């Protein structure tokens, strides 16, 4: 993964050395050539090609922007409505993610979703405690988090 990216960057630098041109266009052309070489010899590596991971990361970023937009629309709806019909509460969510980095990313994404907010993480990092604006539809929110965010982060990190 990171090793393949290093190889690609090295190929770009070798390309710049060969042309004796130290500018961005030469670097980008070298990078594209390196990507093509890596694509041809992709069966040589034990892990899948890192460009697949880049696609997963771009999908995660687009998901992030979509959730940011939707959460703000939802909050504006609740603020402007004449009657406040919400039932706040805290529930626990079991997570399958392992590393600190994944947990941090998942917590940030949950905090950005409409009506949910991470308040604490358990000592063994298996459970997130989430404050929900509407505790009524808890099952819906759990399954939504599981299906969208956890899957997207798993795709990046596996």
């Amino acid at each position, binding site marked *: 993964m990171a090793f393949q990216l290093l190889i690609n960057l090295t190929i770009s630098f070798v390309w710049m050395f060969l042309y004796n041109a130290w500018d961005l266009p030469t670097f980008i052309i070298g990078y594209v050539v390196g990507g093509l070489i890596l694509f041809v010899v992709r069966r040589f590596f034990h892990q899948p090609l890192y460009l697949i991971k880049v696609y997963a990361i771009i999908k995660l970023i687009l998901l992030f922007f979509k959730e940011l937009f939707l959460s703000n629309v939802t909050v504006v709806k609740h603020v402007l409505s004449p009657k406040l019909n919400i039932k706040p509460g805290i529930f626990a969510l079991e997570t399958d993610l392992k590393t*600190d980095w994944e*947990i941090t990313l998942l*917590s940030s994404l949950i905090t950005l979703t409409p009506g949910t907010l991470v308040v*604490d993480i358990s000592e063994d990092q298996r459970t997130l405690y989430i404050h929900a604006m509407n505790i009524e539809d808890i099952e819906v929110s759990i399954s939504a988090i599981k299906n969208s965010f956890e899957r997207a982060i798993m795709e990046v990190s596996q």
Partner: protein
Amino acid sequence: MRPNDVILKTATQLVTFIIIIFSIYVFLAGHHNPGGGFIGGLMTAAAFVLIGIAFDIKTIKRILPFDFKILTATGLLIAVLTGIGSFVFDSPFLSHTYDYFYLPLLGKTELATALLFDIGVYFVVIGVTLTIIYTIGEDN
């Protein structure tokens, strides 16, 4: 029971490097733009203070395994030496000069002796700030 602050620690590992690189940029921009040794040193010290908040003071000690008072003294020494250096060229104390040089890869570059003085200021500010934080933080 201590709360599990995994989010703060993970974010710190990423943000610290951004703060340090920005502080170095501000330090180097000080000749023609807002910035300079003082604000650059304060920002670098702030990055280490953030590490101290997220982890603990022992971690700062492990990253920078030397006495901060010596760092302060080194900074003052550099600043004074740049002042004394002007005696070599028969000019008054603390006269500074600059010139344009052609360096490989960088092209035409302006090098000023005021930058050396600024490095002294930078070290003094980092040393003093971290000494204060360390002294207060260790108090039991």
